[in-house]
């Protein structure tokens, strides 16, 4: 395997930065997320970022197009993304899996979301394996291999003081080619992941949920929920959005922005009716979507076990407990 000392990582990133716009997981302003690589950024390798990389592909607010009224007609103007390839370094397996989920939603079943596709096509990924899962992680229970990510162009392995690199796709080979001179060949093995703290058994949960729409557990599960959007906004797989516009005189900008099924306004209808009037229906929707509707449609869970929702929930409403409760329900 080709390896590099962690201490020399920045040299490699510098080389790559000549070719790509490199994004790295870094600490910033008392949180952490993927940011543009610069020499002085505080890269974190020992844990996953608090805010998922989804905003690289699906920004919280994304301008779609502009309109302008000209006399009695209207002119449309496209908004193009900045040109150039991006390289996302250090994406964990769970977050790579979430991209797989996004791809299903935005690129399959006969509909292509161009906004997403443009961004997706311009990104090359270097996935990074996890040596020690964080306490809130439970990816393995959701069928994600923390040592081998799906859909990555390059797979990197955490080897202690070194990082091993392996090209997966053609694009990945090109990346390796660029930095080859800075890597050394060593007989390293794919490392074994550490123990998971959270024990979850999600087998059969999707099927189990089939008859549980009216189950009393939703009353119970939802009581403590505050219906904030924290869990859905930090979730790498949540992809709901709302389309709106900013009107400035004759100029209109259409944009889309994240929305959350936890909010009352999400299902509010023009006439005032709300089919999900209370937290019970909203919380049920969140879990049903993740664990039942999505698997039904795309044959995969809409949860990758990244643990972010567990981390931010103000009231510790824990999805692993909910899964357990579902499985134990009569």
């Amino acid at each position, binding site marked *: 395997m080709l390896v590099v000392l962690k201490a020399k990582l920045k040299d490699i990133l510098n080389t790559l930065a000549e070719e790509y716009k490199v994004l790295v997981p870094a600490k910033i302003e008392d949180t952490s997320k993927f940011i543009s690589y610069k020499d002085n950024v505080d890269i974190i390798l020992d844990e996953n970022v608090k805010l998922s990389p989804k905003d690289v592909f699906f920004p919280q607010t994304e301008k779609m197009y502009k309109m302008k009224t000209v006399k009695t007609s209207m002119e449309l103007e496209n908004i193009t993304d900045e040109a150039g390839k991006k390289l996302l370094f250090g994406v964990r397996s769970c977050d790579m899996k979430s991209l797989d989920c996004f791809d299903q939603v935005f690129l399959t079943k006969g509909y292509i979301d161009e906004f997403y596709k443009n961004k997706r096509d311009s990104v090359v990924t270097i996935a990074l394996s996890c040596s020690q899962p964080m306490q809130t992680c439970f990816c393995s229970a959701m069928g994600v291999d923390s040592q081998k990510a799906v859909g990555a162009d390059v797979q990197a392995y955490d080897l202690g003081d070194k990082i091993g690199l392996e090209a997966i796709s053609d694009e990945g080979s090109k990346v390796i080619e660029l930095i080859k001179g800075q890597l050394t060949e060593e007989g390293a093995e794919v490392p074994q992941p550490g123990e998971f703290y959270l024990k979850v058994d999600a087998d059969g949960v999707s099927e189990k949920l089939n008859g549980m729409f009216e189950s009393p557990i939703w009353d119970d599960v939802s009581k403590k929920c505050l219906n904030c959007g924290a869990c859905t906004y930090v979730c790498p797989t949540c992809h709901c959005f709302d389309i709106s516009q*900013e009107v*400035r005189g004759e*100029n209109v*900008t259409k944009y889309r922005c994240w929305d959350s099924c936890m909010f009352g306004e999400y299902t509010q209808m023009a006439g005032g009716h709300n089919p999900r009037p209370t937290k019970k229906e909203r919380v049920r929707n969140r879990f049903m979507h993740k664990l039942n509707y999505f698997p039904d449609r795309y044959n995969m869970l809409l949860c990758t076990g990244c643990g972010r929702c567990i981390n931010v929930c103000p009231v510790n409403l824990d999805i692993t407990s909910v899964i357990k409760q579902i499985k134990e329900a009569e």
Partner: protein
Amino acid sequence: MSVNEVQQNKEVEQNWEPKILVFACTWCTYAGADLTGLSRLQYPPNIRILKVPCSGRVNPQFVIKAFQKGVDGVLVAGCHPGDCHYTSGNYFTRRRFLLMRRLMEYIGMEPQRFQNRWISAAEAPKFQQVITEMTEEIRTLGPNRKLRDDQW
């Protein structure tokens, strides 16, 4: 260079003029502004007056929204204490904006940009003076970029 300064240079070049939004209560300040005109007292044409039923009608959102939409200064003006058409509206205004002025200053807004005054229906010279002074203060500060929502 500060956020303000960078933009400042750009706009000064384009003959920038201060833009001030005045929330005027209809019973006192608005009438006072009318009298200022009738008395042919000149004041800078940099204000836009928005008539409100009472200074008590103005809430924090009005002020922040104005800055978001691009004004350089906000003035909330109403009847003198004791003279409010609704007896006590302006006493509430006073408390609300004593606090809010401090909060705005606290988050980095220059205090001159958000002001409050009592101007009665008879105080045309005061209206003239307040507007003239405020316009000059804001001209010295330059265009406001803070809180502005200008990325569309």
